[in-house]
């Protein structure tokens, strides 16, 4: 096994299988063609291209040979169907296949001798393959579900039943592409859900900060008996599962008539986020130099004045992280909204999407609802990723 040519061939086969599966998915999703891998051809061309990469030092020559190999081994049907169908798309596919085979493989076998390998070289080869495989694999498992979510929402019911793999955009439909979105907003009241969700999330952020900032300051800066216990045990609250709390809350709210009210929801949401917010903030407050605050105290500010005028302006980045994180939790919250809200006029977005999960509502509507719920939070996340990742790591977040 520890021979250069053997490793190159094995890695070539594995890589070829990876690439061909990915390309098949991409081709099927984007063109709707009945493409499928020719497994035997994939194995043979993988081994061959691996050896070519090992023995042919010139990359250009390697690509040309691979090109011939890919077409030759599969009898001019690299995707299992005749090249005459949608030739342009298949042509692009072949090009990507050739480049995707020969370039990565030549990188993986770079500097590898054809003969016996040392342990270092052998493992290096495997690590290179695994890294390459990892990029493709992880990207695929993350991108495919989101792509399917987005594309299903703009497909017609008929088209999807006909070929569940065809996610090509039907451009000729024009604005009709967004029909499910339009129906969600006009018939299913999603505009109001969006607004409710937004207001509830913002209010949750506000209340959480209002409660947790003083608490975090006290735990971080002030000396009192029980300070250590407090800073540790606050996270214990995160060990309590929501469903265990939701049951008595449901019972209590039923009796006091708080079910079906956003006020009731707002009584609960902030408390689920206060502990982690307090924990994150106290960590940040501890890192701030105490001297500045002491100077403020000397100059006659009260403690609250110090918090307001010195600590808070200095901790804006932390406040941003915490706010974003709390916003995300409140926006994504499902269980309480599901149990406590029955009245469609008061639904939050997540509750509204749950309503779409019935056999009477077409799948595109459900997926459009999912997109509507996902998009704002993803946009926020991409725009402020730095804060968000910091928030996620700092809080050692609840899932």
């Amino acid at each position, binding site marked *: 096994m520890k021979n250069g040519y053997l490793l190159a061939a094995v890695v070539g086969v594995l890589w070829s299988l990876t690439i061909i599966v990915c390309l098949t998915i991409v081709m099927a999703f984007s063109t709707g063609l009945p493409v499928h891998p020719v*497994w035997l051809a994939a194995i043979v061309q993988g081994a061959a291209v691996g050896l070519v990469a090992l023995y042919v030092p010139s990359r250009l020559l390697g690509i040309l040979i691979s090109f011939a190999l890919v077409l030759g081994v599969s009898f001019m049907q690299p995707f299992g169907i005749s090249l005459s169908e949608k030739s342009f798309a298949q042509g692009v596919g072949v090009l990507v296949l050739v480049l995707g085979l020969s370039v990565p493989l030549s990188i993986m076998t770079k500097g590898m001798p054809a003969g016996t390998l040392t342990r270092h070289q052998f493992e290096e080869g495997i690590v290179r393959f695994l890294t390459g495989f990892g990029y493709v694999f992880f990207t695929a498992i993350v991108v495919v579900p989101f792509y399917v979510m987005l594309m299903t929402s703009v497909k017609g019911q008929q088209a999807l039943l006909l070929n569940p793999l065809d996610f090509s955009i039907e451009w000729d439909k024009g604005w009709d592409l967004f029909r499910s979105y339009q129906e969600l907003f006009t018939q299913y009241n999603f505009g109001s859900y969006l607004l409710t969700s937004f207001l509830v999330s913002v209010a949750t952020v506000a209340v959480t900060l209002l409660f947790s900032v003083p608490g975090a300051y006290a735990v971080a800066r002030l000396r009192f008996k029980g300070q250590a216990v407090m800073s540790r045990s606050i996270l214990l609250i995160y060990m309590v599962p929501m469903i265990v709390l939701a049951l008595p809350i449901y019972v209590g709210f039923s009796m006091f008539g708080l079910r079906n009210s956003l006020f009731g929801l707002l009584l609960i949401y902030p408390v689920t986020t206060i502990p982690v917010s307090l924990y994150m903030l106290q960590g940040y407050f501890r890192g701030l130099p105490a001297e500045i605050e002491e100077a403020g105290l000397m100059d006659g500010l009260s403690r609250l004045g110090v918090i307001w005028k010195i600590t808070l302006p200095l901790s804006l980045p932390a406040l941003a992280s915490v706010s974003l994180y709390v916003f995300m939790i409140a926006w994504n919250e499902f269980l309480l909204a599901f149990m406590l809200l029955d009245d469609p006029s008061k639904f939050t977005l997540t509750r509204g999407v749950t309503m779409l999960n019935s056999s009477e509502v077409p799948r595109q509507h459900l997926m459009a609802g999912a997109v509507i*719920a996902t998009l704002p939070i993803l946009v926020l996340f991409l725009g402020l990723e730095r804060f968000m990742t910091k928030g996620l790591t700092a809080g050692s977040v609840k899932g």
Partner: protein
Amino acid sequence: MSTTDYPNSSTGAGHQPTALAPPRSGPLAKREARLAWGLLTPTLLSVALVIILPLLAIFWISAKPIGLSDLRPTTPDVYERVRGKVSAAGDRVTIEYRLTNSSREKPIANVTMSDVWPAGLEPVSLDERCTLAAGQLSCNLGDWEAGHRERLLIEVVAQEPFINSDVNVRDTEPVMTGDASSDLFNLTFTWDNFRSVFDSGEFLEVLWVTLFYTVVGTIGALVVGMLAALMLNKSFTGQGILRGLFLFPYVAPVIAVAFTWVTLLDPFSGSFNALLVQMGLIETPINFFGQRPLALFTVTAFEIWRYFPLSFLFILARMQSIDHDIYEAADMDGASPFQKFYYLSLPQLMGILSVLFLLRFIWTFNKFDDIFLMTGGNAGTRTLTVNVYEQAFAISNIGAGAAVAVVIFGCLLAFSFFFFRFISREEGL
């Protein structure tokens, strides 16, 4: 070190004398402590109300024989109608109140009824339990048995003002009051809830499913997250983009991704099955969410998919803080990549890995939404948390749901014991 006798000579690098702390029990210290508790009060109060109180309530409810329908309070009902027709002054009609206790189990004590009558109605004879004063009828109906029903008839003579006005007798609803004991607050307790939970043959299966889901889901998310972190632990263009991309499953709302998986894996119109068939890997579509034990594997895979980003993020952050020198030294000594990972990286990651394992273990154990949305606990995917919902709302037995919740709480106490024993030492959480 005592604060009063710190050494005059420096005892070593980085060892600085601690600042003089104020005495522990002076008036200033007391004021500071008071302020601290004052600042913490809102948090503590809200936590006590929304977390501690429900937790205590769970124990109470779990010992109560109550179902979903018992949450509605038992109240006396009334239906009012007028028998006969009025056309001229002096006509006689009968006002009829049909009174019922809709509960078949519980009596109601001290029932009263009051009703406002329109002007111009004179009672011929009044039931002895009722009085009429200033157009308001008040009745003391005494104690009612369970399922009590009766008709209260009052014959009245209509006068001129009533005929002339458009007012109807039924325009004002009679108001009923009565004291009924709610099952929730009385002092009868029962073990029935626990018995029904433990006795059912499925409880062992629920435990086993929970264990599998938790252990495999946790370890899977950790391993996959670590692989992803290993892969991205080098700088290249696009590293930031990939890192952001890998966090998508975690950041997106659970309903969105859960329903997407359901759509994707659907046996009839799902793309994944269609893909497998087209590639020639399977003959007939697989029902990923409807078959035992496959459904359990699928929801566990979902759990891993959704939470690997979290461990990925933490492990990557830890990896990037490892000093590079040790790897160069290892290279000099001829260590292979796997050796470097096993002997150098892994020991440094053990701390964060064990923290993540314990946290994720508890959170996966607590997870409800994912399974509930994907399978609803069917096809052998019912975990303890889903069982709470199932018992309380599907079978409508709130008490049994609470009993399962108590079991969960017991498990969590055991976990937190471990948490404090091991974790707090590891990372000083």
